[in-house]
């Protein structure tokens, strides 16, 4: 084949041949009332049966093959009389042959789909689809492939379902178990005040706890004074707030919020209990996954922890102490402040935070994320409103997207983007021998 147009089947329908309905009705209506036999010496009737079941394949042009090379853009149309239609497995195009970091995502209709993990590097990704279709499963597969290739990952796990990805179904540690660390806020994850820093602390008070502007200025002064005198401890901060000379209402405002934060038990003065960000940095640089188990965490705690990590990461990345980080954020709207979305896809991305958003509520992900996403993994979505939301994806036309995504069986996802070299492809994600713990909780156990 010298030259060819690559088209992809996006939908299969029964061909709407003229009068086909009439034929079918005729069959159904005479079926019960009359029986008999056909003497059809040339067996032409078999063609009628073929024709009645004729299907029409709705296709989209995805590219062309010229001189044996596939390209995604084309302005060329083949002859419609002298051309032939030949099956061409699109996974051949989408797979990254000879990739240095191959990972098999699963099977297409005809073959395995193996891509290069490098295609997640520097990218913004979305995994979406309705409940229970396998989003987290795919995300786990990606995380495991990344750490296998020495990449650093930070996972914000709102349901505590990533905590055992280092153990097999038989509860034995996997080969990568020592490259996975689970952090539980309040237990293995506690911070000293200085480690958190005024900015993050204050931001939490302002954004999560609605601390008024004037009060926030007062709080900054208190914090700074304590820091200067080398006395930034929980007790002294508590005392300072109570004793600081200011309007009673301001003090009350600060104090109530401070107490709320203290109740989260995220803070400690004991150095040995504090989370060691320099060890974090070291491990990350060696290829490691940190999983922050946010299950049952208070909303404010979630926000605070995320905000804290984001500012820490920003610091470490801009000082070149960290090379990059692959951030996996499940249901980010629960903890990601409005103002951070834009930051994540612009400034932080340049610094080296490569985010994968995972959600079953596509409309909670900001539109700009869809527009800028480099890779989108879409599982089944039937809700019209959700389909509208994902139609904002720039990498595929809305018509193909809708028609494919609506009919996807569980564990199958449509991938568009760089990772499949811009050839949209449906893959049945492979199973994993790890404890996924992703099952929705049920009351009835049978």
């Amino acid at each position, binding site marked *: 084949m010298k030259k060819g147009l690559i088209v992809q089947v996006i939908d299969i329908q029964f061909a709407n*041949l003229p*009068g086909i309905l009439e034929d079918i009705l*005729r069959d159904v209506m*005479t079926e019960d009332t*009359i*029986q008999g036999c*056909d003497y059809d010496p040339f067996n*032409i009737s078999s063609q009628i049966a073929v*024709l*009645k079941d004729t299907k029409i394949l709705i296709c989209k042009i995805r590219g062309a093959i010229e001189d044996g090379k596939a390209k995604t853009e084309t302005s060329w149309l083949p002859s419609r009389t002298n051309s032939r239609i030949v099956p061409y497995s699109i996974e051949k195009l989408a797979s990254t042959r000879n990739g240095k970091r191959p990972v098999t995502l699963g099977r297409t209709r005809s073959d395995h789909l193996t891509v290069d993990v490098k295609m997640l590097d520097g990218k913004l990704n979305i995994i979406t689809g309705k409940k229970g279709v396998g989003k987290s499963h795919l995300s786990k597969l990606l995380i495991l492939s990344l750490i296998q290739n020495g990449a650093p990952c930070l996972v914000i796990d709102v349901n505590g379902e990533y905590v055992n990805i280092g153990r097999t179904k038989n509860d034995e540690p996997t080969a990568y178990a020592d490259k996975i660390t689970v952090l539980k806020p309040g237990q293995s994850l506690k911070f000293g005040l200085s480690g958190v820093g005024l900015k993050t602390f204050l931001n939490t008070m302002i954004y999560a706890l609605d601390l008024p502007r004037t009060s926030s200025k007062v709080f900054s002064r208190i914090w700074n004074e304590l820091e200067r005198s080398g006395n930034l401890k929980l007790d002294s901060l508590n005392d300072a707030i109570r004793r600081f000379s200011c309007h009673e209402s301001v003090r009350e405002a600060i104090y109530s919020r401070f107490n709320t934060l203290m109740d989260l038990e995220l803070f400690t003065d004991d150095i040995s209990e504090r989370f060691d960000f320099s060890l974090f940095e070291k491990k990350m640089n060696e290829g490691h996954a940190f999983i922050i188990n946010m299950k049952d965490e208070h909303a404010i705690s979630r926000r605070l922890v995320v905000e804290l990590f984001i500012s820490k990461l920003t610091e470490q990345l801009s000082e070149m102490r960290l090379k990059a980080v692959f951030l996996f954020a499940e249901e980010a709207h629960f903890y990601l402040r409005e103002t951070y979305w834009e930051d994540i896809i612009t400034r932080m991305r340049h610094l080296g935070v490569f985010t994968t958003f995972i959600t079953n509520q596509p409309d909670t992900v900001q539109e700009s994320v869809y527009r800028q996403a480099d890779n989108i993994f879409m599982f089944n979505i039937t809700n019209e409103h959700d389909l509208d939301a994902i139609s904002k994806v720039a990498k595929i036309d809305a018509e193909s997207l809708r028609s494919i995504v609506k009919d996807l069986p569980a564990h199958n996802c449509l991938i568009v983007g760089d990772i499949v070299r811009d050839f949209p492809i449906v893959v049945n994600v492979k199973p994993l021998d790890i404890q996924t713990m992703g099952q929705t909780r049920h009351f009835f156990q049978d």
Partner: protein
Amino acid sequence: MTHRTQDIGFEHSKISMLLSEESGNILLPDFLLNLSSESMRTLGGGFFEPREVTTVEGELEDAVEEEPHLNLANTTIIDEPAPIAKVIGNCTVAAVDVSSVRVGESEQGLLYALRGALVWREGLSYNFTRCGPLAFHLNDLIARSLNRRSRANDNLSYSAWSPLSERLLSRLRNTLERWMQRLACSRLSRGIVLLDGSLTAGTPDNPTVYLEDILNRSRENGNAVIAFSKETKLCFSGKKITRLLDKANYPCMLNIDRIITPQFPSAPVRLMGRVYVAKLTSRGLPFRVDIDRQLSEESAAKAVGRLINSDIVEQGYPETLRLAHILSTFTANEILAIQRHLSIEYGLKLAPRLSFRRSLFGPYGTSTEAS
């Protein structure tokens, strides 16, 4: 009475045997089968322009012109239609219909397909055997072959106006139709055989011998042959003759033979049936009905009376015949299927469709004209 039932039991097996008949040459003359294959072989993988089938083309069936238009002047006094009296007792009703359709065009000729259906009602159930589709490539070969077979001396003047292909087609069609009618008349006894059209014969493409044979066999078996014309060209003082029953609101039939026969003074064309217009149900449609002329008028009336008791005649048309029609006619998709069969079986290449009409008139040419 017992004797009768036994008879029916016997008949039952005789016509029903068609359902399990092993050999096709009972249903279909070998000669037609061979002619079909031979004519199709002459195609030899050439180009083929399939007929475009769209739902716009309502009537796919290519009716073959059989009868001249006749307009009878209003000089005769018309009798009152006679009411049809139901005759108690059921009999088996059989009906035959054959359809032909043009499926395309080769470089040398037209391609047609034929299909015939024989339907019978026994007790309450309807059964059928159907044969075809048979495809024919209308060309010289067929013409020669048909001429050789033709026993009657061709009187070409009668329908010389019709183009050769149309005449070939009507001969082929007639061959199949008469064959199946003969089958029905021989397999049935003391029943009613319904035919589509009239009982007119005597043209080169519709010779008298076959119809005569059919009627003879039928009489031997005690059957009555009744033919229904879906459409009639006979007019009486400017109106379709069926309008003569406009005022009748009861099942009735009107013998119009007296006014028709003088119009066919002599051979070759022969009216082998007595011509009536009949309305089988009070609110049904009227049809031209031909009944075997050798049945007495009384027997003819009885036969019709027995028909309305033995078959469903909703809308004034016997269900058995309606089913035979439905089963034989081709739908748009069946035509597509035949076209597909032809291109696979005979390696026909689809001619690129360059419609002159389209290129000349653009979207203003209608689709029916495309043929």
